[in-house]
């Protein structure tokens, strides 16, 4: 088969633009990026379908000129999945905005906490040495103590990431970058 350069270049540009966008932090841009890549993939499916351009419906075009129906069926599902994905990510963006007053994907607090443990050469909380109180009541006290310590740490990391405290509605991201 002979490749079609126009479509290949179009596809490449769409992929490039999509990748550029998905490496962003804003959920809206990430979604736009994913959908651009999805459109690029649509062109990929057109390309690999081959040169035939007959409609794959019996009776509408001769069988030896029909375009390959299998990529079409696969991509038809992909299109509708894309719609479901769009709805879901938009709802996610809306929810993030409701909570944080922006739609950005922040670094994961749990991951940050593990990085801190690694820096301090500490074990994780799943490691339970045999020492320490065995009595169940004392043990539960200890657990709640750890919980509050972890919560305080999470709060601190959140402050670092967002520049504000949890449940503080102040919006620090209003500044707009000019093009």
């Amino acid at each position, binding site marked *: 088969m002979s*490749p079609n*350069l126009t*479509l290949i*270049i179009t*596809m*490449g*540009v769409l*992929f490039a*633009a999509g990748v*550029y*966008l998905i*490496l*962003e*932090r*804003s959920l*809206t841009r990430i979604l736009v990026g994913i959908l651009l890549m999805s*459109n*690029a993939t*649509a062109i990929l499916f057109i*390309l*690999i379908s*081959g040169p035939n351009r007959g409609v*794959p*419906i*019996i009776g509408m*075009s001769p*069988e030896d000129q029909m375009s390959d*129906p*299998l990529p079409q069926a696969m991509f*038809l599902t992909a*299109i*509708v*999945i894309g*719609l479901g994905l769009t*709805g879901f990510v*938009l*709802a996610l963006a*809306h*929810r993030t*905005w409701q909570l944080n007053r922006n739609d*950005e*994907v922040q*670094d994961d607090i749990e*991951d940050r906490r593990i*990085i801190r*443990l690694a820096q301090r050469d*500490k*074990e994780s909380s799943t*490691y*339970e*040495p045999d020492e320490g*109180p065995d009595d*169940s009541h004392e*043990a539960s006290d200890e657990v709640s103590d750890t919980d509050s310590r972890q919560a305080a740490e999470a709060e601190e990391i959140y402050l670092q990431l967002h520049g504000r405290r949890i449940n503080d509605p102040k919006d620090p*991201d*209003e*500044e*707009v*970058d000019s*093009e």
Partner: protein
Amino acid sequence: MLAQIVIVTVAALIAPTLVRFLGRRAFLLLAIVPLIPFIWALSLSDEILEGEILQQNIPWIESLDFSIAFELDGLAWIMVLIVSGIGALVVFYCNYYFTDASRGLRSFAAYLLAFVASMLGLVLANDLLLLFLFWELTTVFSYLLIGHNAESKSSRRAAMKALMVTTAGGLAMFVGFLILGVQVGSMEISVILDAEPRGSLITVAIALVLIGALSKSALFPFHFWLPSAMAAPTPVSAYLHAAAMVKAGIYLIARFAPAFADVEIWRPTIIIAGCITTLIGGWQALKQTDLKLMLAYGTISQLGLMAIFFGVGTVEAAVAGLALLIAHAVFKSSLFMSVGVIDRATGTRDIRRLHGLWNAMPLLSIGMVLSALSMAAVIPTFGFVAKEAAFGSLAAEWGNSALWPILTFVAVFVSAVLTAAYALRFVYGALSGSDGAASPVRVRPRPLLSQAPTAFLGLFGVVLGFWSIKPFIFLDPYADEFLDQQGNAAAQFHNEVILWHGFNLIFTLSLVALVLGAVMFWQRKRFAKLQAMLHQPISADGIYHGIMRGIDRFAVEVTGATQRGSLPLYLSTILIVVIVIPGTLLILSPNWFGNFVWFESPLQPFVGVIMIIAAIAAARSRRRLRAVALLGVTGYGVAILFAFNGAPDLALTQVLVETVSLVFFVFAMRRLPTHFSNRPLRRSRFLRLLVGVVFGATMAGVTYVAISARTANPISDDFAKWAYEVGGGKNIVNVILVDIRAWDTMGEISFLVAAATGVASLVFIKRRNARIVRPTDLEGPKQVWGLDDTMTLSVRQSVVEGNEASDREGFTWLRGGATLAPERRSIIFEVVTRLIFHTMIIFSIYLLFAGHNRPGGGFAAGLVVGVALLVRYLAGGRYELAEALPIDAGRILGIGLMIAVGSGIAAMFYTGTMFQSEIIHFTWPVFGEVKLVTSLFFDIGVYLVVVGLMLDVLRSLGAELDIQMEDEGEDSGDSVPVGSGVSSES
């Protein structure tokens, strides 16, 4: 044999219900269950004693040569009797150990019986994989049972420790099993044992299997998990940690001993581990003041002893080991149960505080004394019989100048002394001890029946002892098989498991051991001082914790180094891998220099250039809506390409989806700032651009090379024929969706349901299926989408007058129109909506039914309904949407999924295969000849799911957001009002 396991498993499943209604008394009923396999095994005793071997074989996964194979021979028979007999007693005992207020009793009952079933499976299995399966099941249930008291940290730790150690061993064993199975070419245990394979690989396999056995039976160096496991409720200790689970390792050694005892690592490994274990156990037991811990270390010591005799490799020693196993199962579970009673009666297990039990609970005390005598191997208990046979079998090895029989004998002898000493310490401490006067406890006698199991088993030990006046014939079948397997069928086994051998050296040594033990007990204070002086420098427990800590630290370091928590970083990693590996291969590809075309029609460069410009502009855009609109341009471009490349279905769907997506975007972005904030990633922009461009180039190159390299015909060449003949449709794409690849579509609509549910749950803060409010349900006027001050009063006035004029004519175009704020109403829009809505619905139904033969299908049809609903919503607001389809979206999704699944299952009844189509011809009045393909029902399911998705998103991102914004009273400048269009943003 399978039936026995199934019966117990079923009982485990109904146990929680029984406990729920009967409380702890359910255990009395459940105790009958293990008796069923017990009686079954007894009924087969004649056959077994005559040397018969019963087998059962049910093929399971034939391609893997994996079958449910069971075998009942002499060894398995004894194990079944122990597991089920003591199991029944323990379940019975649970009734007295627990109270109705005990927590988690329902699950406990289920786990305990499930454990019985797994243990039966373990000893009956005649297939290595099946054995492993049951082996791991016992581990899992043991974990659940040890951790029964999940609120206690020590209990959780103990459960985890037992799980870690036995699972690690189990995995090693599994590898060993696989090697054995592959080397022999069969997974059947009896076949492998008969084959007696040898070689260095087999040696490795045996070593791995032994690791599994040692860890399961708490032998050195894995012995440390057993004392911790005493955190379990006492019935669990009595059963799992005395009679059943810890015997699994010993059982495996006993099972393999006939065939593998002369593998060079067998004897040293087992005997050394056994000697160390038995000495450590005995030594530690003497240190304990907690009765249960004393028994736990005693168990370790005894397990070591049993292992030694199966390690020796002679039939006499193995038989003695089996006798020890029986004796131990009887006396140790008896003693554990007595400790449970004492614990309940006094609230303590500390020998320094216990006293006066003898008077309070004589039955229990008698049972304890008898069992302890058996433990210390005093004539005439069965413990004594077994010990005599054991001593004798070792002494028989002295002749052949090797040193190890003598060393082993010394270890066994010392162990016997220690055993006698801690047996005395146990009885004395529990029943009369006055050593430490510290706060003696008050005894509240327990019901007689709770003491019965202890007494019964204590007595049974003596009965077995007297039974052995004649040789203990129940061990003969195992002995015969042992000789058979060693190829010594001619050799006659002489059963030495007899109560009385006469006054010989062995008996004298037994007496000496008892006397020395008594002396040690008598001098216990001095001995305690000696023990205190010799403290251990390192403990196995410490090493275990060191390893666990090391693993945890390693995991933290690796996770910390790789999981940076940043989404762009993760994505970049994936993308760079794609660039580097396929990219490198790409450059080296020989397919670069074939023919190519610039384009196939002049339309392509035209559309392509527009798409390229739009994509670049979308990536550069700082405004949300502009980016989305430009994305839409590329989407419509794709639709055009589809239309001109022979894909009408795709073009239709793409146009519909693109339109609907745009509206979704507008809905959701009403509340987001108009511009993207640019704060966090300004510096990395160049890097992102680089990754993007190189990735795009890689994809382009891969596509180019792949297409140039392609020579084969597509697999879909025959689809046209199948589609018509089998699928009954002319539209091949549709037939693929609803028939040929219906499973894909099934997965996809499941995803759509999940996505729709996700959208609703993210947007609806309280609940999704709130009452659907239609315009006629409203009380008082509504002002949906009111704009307050943005319209001048005069404009508003004229709009209101116009509306009133049209309403006066007595005809309402859309009922919901009246709920909008006056300045938001558009009579023309309402009229058009009224006129086209039903047409669109009919069109969608046409697409749905025609889709099998013409462009269309469930997806496109559902999307058309979505667009129709969207128009109603935009023209008349959220109450109009409710008016248009006053059904809960979740219900539509559910019904759609149900119809789709139902059509697949119905096809299975019809044709034997899921989603297989059936073509039905019949005549209907008016319609005439009708050809119905059953996959239409599947497509109807797809249709409903898409409609449900659309409605759900409209209700969430549309209507619910309206309500939230009204509640918050915000409709400020930077949000985009619905209906103002998209193109005005630039």
